[in-house]
């Protein structure tokens, strides 16, 4: 996705809107997305190698990793909230440009109490077909599953021993129960991620780490032999993905 949207930061708090803050240094704040499996870094150079051990005992490859976050907010230590104007970001491990996003051009330097965002889209934002850049990126969910967009696309192959590798498609969407296709039951699976205190320094770079192994083990130990492909229409699998997503993100500490 080459299309870039200009970034701005909105001060949500009105307390200080009218005050002159010209003496507060600001920075162009960049956010980098890092990826790991256990203690090993995962990058586009590692795609396709069946090498990552799961808690359940398989080894897997990461051949495609894309995910979406939305509603990103920075909370200053003094309580002010900075809402990133860009409503969502689509990250793609194979496109390095997508892994460094701008959170704003005039972000005050200083101490912040938290950064939070939604992994995926809350229902209010998960509107079918309304985001041209995501449509162009082929990020849609079929109408028969409630429409809207994917939250996560993690594809690869896995092996339990030396047999021919099998495919897996760990795709996370809003859970849809199609037991009765005429009465689809939808359940939100997007979740809020809250990362604790951090500092915005003048160099203006933050880094978040996605721990890929967590998708397969915490708290639910994922059995790829049971759940590997066709997970989009699997209501129970979607709920387990949401559970496991809770521990996936943390601040990156090199």
């Amino acid at each position, binding site marked *: 996705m080459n299309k870039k949207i200009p970034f701005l930061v909105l001060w949500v708090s009105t307390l200080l809107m009218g005050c002159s803050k010209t003496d507060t240094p600001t920075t162009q704040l960049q956010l980098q997305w890092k990826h790991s499996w256990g203690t090993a870094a995962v990058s586009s150079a590692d795609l396709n190698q069946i090498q990552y051990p799961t808690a359940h005992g398989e080894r897997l490859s990461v051949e495609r990793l894309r995910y979406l976050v939305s509603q990103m907010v920075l909370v200053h230590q003094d309580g002010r909230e900075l809402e990133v104007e860009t409503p969502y970001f689509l990250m793609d491990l194979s496109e390095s440009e997508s892994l460094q996003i701008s959170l704003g051009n005039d972000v005050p330097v200083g101490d912040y109490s938290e950064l939070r965002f939604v992994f995926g889209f809350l229902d209010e934002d998960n509107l079918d077909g309304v985001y*041209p850049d995501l449509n162009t990126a082929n990020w*849609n969910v079929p109408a028969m599953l409630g429409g809207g967009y994917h939250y996560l696309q993690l594809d690869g192959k896995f092996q339990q021993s030396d047999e021919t590798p099998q*495919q897996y*498609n760990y795709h996370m969407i809003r859970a849809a129960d199609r037991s009765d296709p005429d009465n689809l039951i939808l359940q939100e699976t997007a979740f809020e991620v809250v990362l604790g205190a951090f500092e915005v320094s003048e160099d203006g770079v933050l880094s978040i780490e996605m721990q890929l192994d967590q998708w397969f083990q915490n708290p639910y130990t994922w059995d790829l032999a049971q759940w590997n492909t066709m997970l989009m229409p699997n209501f129970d699998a979607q709920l387990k993905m949401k559970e496991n997503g809770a521990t996936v993100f943390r601040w990156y500490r090199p």
Partner: protein
Amino acid sequence: MKKKLVLWVTAAFTGLSCSTDAPETSEYRLEIPEVFEQYLIAPVIPADNPMTAEGIALGKRLFFDPILSGNQTMACAHCHMPENGFSERRRTSLGIAGVPGHRNAMPIFNLAWNFSDRFAWDGKEIGLEEQALEPVSNPLEMNADWEQVAQRLANHPQYPALFQAAFGSAPIDSILVVKAIAQFERTLISGNSKFDQYLRGEVSLSAPEQNGLEVFMDETRGDCFHCHGSPNNPLWTDNAFHNNGLDASFSDLGLGAVSGDPNDNGKFRTPSLRNLSYTAPYMHDGRFNTLMEVIDHYSEGLQYSPTIDPLMKSVAAGGVHLSPQDKSDLLAFLRTLDDAEFQSNPDHRPDRRP
């Protein structure tokens, strides 16, 4: 929906420019199909090759003119025939020496919406202008020397004036030729199929077509949408590269030969599913003569190889094993993506010359 060409006369602007070389051109704005406008981001028009009526007219003439080939017997349109969705019926095309190449000619339409900007089956060409350079000099295709081609055009009784009108007094060279051809190619827009009309609320789908759409979108049946788009991505391609399980080993490495990365071996660009009725045979090597052969491949014919795409999830079973009814309905749905208006558009045929 009748596509119209919208011309914006900018002669005053260009005429008043400081450069005496600047031609008085008419800016050309694509009329974007309604469903593209609604669902997709804007097409790619390079800043250094803005579209003009004069550039498009020149590009169209060049596209259909064998003057670009080494022995002046073959035009771009010899392999990219308008009546075949700008592809051709042969499995692989013959060059000017009568020797076949090793790839099927890709259809040409909606190329301005290829946001990856990688063209050809293997993605070796970056940018539409760049893409047009290679076939002219390829020994297996038009086998021409670009300097000789440029000289030929410069000595032609009509081309110098056409280049002057499109690009000013710059010397005719390969760069101007491919810029003009790319401008013409960007006008080849297919966006008025039965399914587009369905999306616009103008027609209904038949029961088989509707079920075929469901097969296409159902992850437990066809699961075609992960690579081939959806009603919300009416390009009907992701323009990305996949190994779709054609072979267990490769005689053609595809993207892997371009990137040098063995993980890319056997990957080829996803073609659009528009106009399939006109663009047989199918796949990068034209191995399938019919659409049902293609469906059978995904249903029962998948071959495992280390780089097979994870989305080819049923490879262990040979494919997704569609029922005969689902296969037939999927075919019916795919035919709703045919755009007869595009196929018969007189603007896509060579002009009569005086």
